């Protein structure tokens, strides 16, 4: 995992923006980006969705999807017991097949982080190196409607408890009201709150809540804004609002990180979350990542699925490839 150095952030942003990241400067920059034609974008997504991924490609894809999942539970009713069950599933997704890879991370509320770490034990670590990390949602998830102080405390709390990754939400109200400077500032400050005592940073994913931003132009601008402000990942949704992740939205965000890479040489990650329930859909996302940003993005530090029920559908497909016949719900475990 990597976190952008906070020390160079303001300079990089100022350099690219040509000024301080206030409402006016940001507005000029973000509204100067080329527009998005929605019909064309959706058409491209549909075309990518016609790719036919079979046999060896499919087998590879199914394993890769599992390796990129942030297995998630974000319910008011979550308990330590629920979290332990989730972790067990994360470490051993298919009870009947020990060769099944592990997921990338578990994603829980901040106060559940200690239980997740405890349950992971020795397996807790960097998913790029075979471990499973702990991601915590923070900043008054999912609504983001709280003071900045509360949001920073929420973040610091989770980091102090050992979270490796923080999934924050942006202030959508402020964004839609054009207060880009405020949105920028909040992201930058949350990134600061991700700093640990030893000087390393938790990785910051910035949830745009694309379903509330509604237009593709807004999503494109919010993506650039989040990256300028220091996000390591841009994430589509909290999963609590419909629509959550869609293929066109994810495609758009991948175009942004691709263009960011062309402009700066830095790689930022993308995480679609919510609404991806079938292997078929998940494979479309893999194809989109590979054909838009590039195959190097198919790694845990650059792409994640925020999902819960997706995992079992992938396991059913995986079982079918192995056995040659369809599998059923009794043959996958509940998390």
């Amino acid at each position, binding site marked *: 995992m990597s976190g952008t150095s906070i020390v160079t952030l303001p300079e990089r942003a100022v350099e690219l923006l040509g000024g301080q990241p206030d409402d006016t400067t940001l507005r000029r920059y973000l509204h100067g980006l*080329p527009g998005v034609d929605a019909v064309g974008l959706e058409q491209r997504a549909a075309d990518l969705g016609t790719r036919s991924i079979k046999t060896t490609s499919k087998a590879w894809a199914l394993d890769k999807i599992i390796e990129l999942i942030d297995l998630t539970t974000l319910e008011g009713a979550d308990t330590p017991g629920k979290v332990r069950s989730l972790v067990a599933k994360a470490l051993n997704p298919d009870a009947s097949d020990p060769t099944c890879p592990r997921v990338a991370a578990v994603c829980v509320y901040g106060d559940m982080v200690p239980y997740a770490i405890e349950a992971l034990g020795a397996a807790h670590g960097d998913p790029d190196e075979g471990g499973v990390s702990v991601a915590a949602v923070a900043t008054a998830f999912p609504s983001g409607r709280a003071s900045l102080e509360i949001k920073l405390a929420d973040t610091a709390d989770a980091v102090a408890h050992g979270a490796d990754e923080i999934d924050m939400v942006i202030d959508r109200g402020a964004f839609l009201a054009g207060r880009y400077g405020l949105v920028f500032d909040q992201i930058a400050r949350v990134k600061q709150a991700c700093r640990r005592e030893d000087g390393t940073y938790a990785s910051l994913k910035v949830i745009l809540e694309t379903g509330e931003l509604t237009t593709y132009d807004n999503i494109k601008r919010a993506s650039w804004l989040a990256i300028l402000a220091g996000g390591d990942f841009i994430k589509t949704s909290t999963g609590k609002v419909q629509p959550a992740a869609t293929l066109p939205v994810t495609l758009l965000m991948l175009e942004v990180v691709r263009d960011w890479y062309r402009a700066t040489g830095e790689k930022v990650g993308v995480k679609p979350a919510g609404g991806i329930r079938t292997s078929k859909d998940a494979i479309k996302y893999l194809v989109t990542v590979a054909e838009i940003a590039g195959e190097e993005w198919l790694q845990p530090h650059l792409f994640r699925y925020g999902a819960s029920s997706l995992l079992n559908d992938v396991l059913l497909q995986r079982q079918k490839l192995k056995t040659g016949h369809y599998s059923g719900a009794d043959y996958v475990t509940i998390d």
Partner: protein
Amino acid sequence: MSFLEYAPAPESRAILNLRDEYGLFIDGDFRPGTGESFVTISPADETRIATIASASEADVDAAVAAARRAYDKTWSKMSGRDRGKYLFRIARLVQERARELAVAESLDNGKPIKESRDVDVPLVAAWFFYYAGWADKLDYAGLGADPRPLGVAGQVIPWNFPLLMLAWKIAPALAAGNTVVLKPAETTPLTALLFAEILQQADLPPGVVNIVTGAGATGATLVRHPDVDKVAFTGSTAVGREIAKAVAGTDKKVTLELGGKAANIIFEDAPIEQAIDGIVTGIFFNQGQVCCAGSRLVVQESIHDEVVDRLKARLSTLRLGDPLDKNTDIGAINSLEQLNRVRELSRIGDEEGAERWTADCVIPDKGFWFAPTIFTNVQSSHRIARDEIFGPVLSVLTFRTPDEAIAKANNTPYGLSAGVWTEKGSRILAVADKLRAGVVWANTFNRFDPSSPFGGYKESGYGREGGRHGLAAYLKGASAGDAARRVEAGRSKKEVSA
């Protein structure tokens, strides 16, 4: 292993039930041709598909006679309601056999199965569906008080969209009450012959549609046949010219849909990502073998480098190969003849001083292939900016102002289509006003619909296919001069040299 090297995903040929040999479809049945039969091959690997009959002059005569009989005795007496019902049946049968038709089309033409499955065949069904509904509503078409059919239509179609071009011709002709003799292109007869089987399943009265396969001579005989009332041709401007000359002085009504050299104009405020997609669709869809292809990229100079860079990156994800593989984006060129033409014009492009860039594709050993190619530094005076290449070759020119873009776009004898990319609505509409092209696509490209009229200005031909306007070609009273008495030719018609 690279994920992007997707495992083969072949569409199975098992769905096909092809004959080894096909006859001509005349008067409701297949019969042998009296010309010298020929073979149709798959351009992807040059293997034989089937033996095809060739229609001699006598065969064409018989077909026209069958069409005339069917017109006089059956079709002209039938209610519009019933004609419509036949067309609805045909539409439904095409939908039912859609997969089979798509496989056959890709096999015979070389285009990717993704295109024949997702574009060609669905549009074929839609075309019949649309015109079925017009058959009993001709009074409402705004084409005259009591529009009547012309009689027998002789129709010659090209090889680039074989079944779709057949639908564009047959559907409106039948809806308007005409009967038809249609000649498919020499290299792509297969889906027309499968279509004939569909006509039998629809129980269409014999002789209403006749299909005469053959080469150029068959087509020439058909369009010059004295008992053909209406000629419809889609193909090259060169042949279109000959047809226009051949019908001069006769009563034959003619519509022509010919070549193009469309400009795809990208303004600096275009939605860039989608514009790149539009450029790619514009010139590489169907391997660029499209009359309305966006074969000239006319890009605002200020964004030229960025657009070309992005375009090249985008082309690197295009997959060239087996047309029947579901992941193939670029299929085979339809024939060796066409491939040689593309190669020759590209060579000329090199000679003229344009800069060639070709996508890095693995070219199969057998078959006819041309990797997507871009020429930059192309000027209006270059041949590759003026001649229709009809292949996956894009010529890139620049402009500074809207006026200049329009001038360059219009600076061609062709006038079939054009593209305009900009976020500014008022500019789209003003530019569209000034473009001398029959189809203007704004922030999109190569979109077709049976309700949307298609056709060219200038040397791209005349007449429209699709929409309410598409009926005009097949109805009396719909065109000026119908009511006027035919003026006797003042002197004998001179032979026009070929």
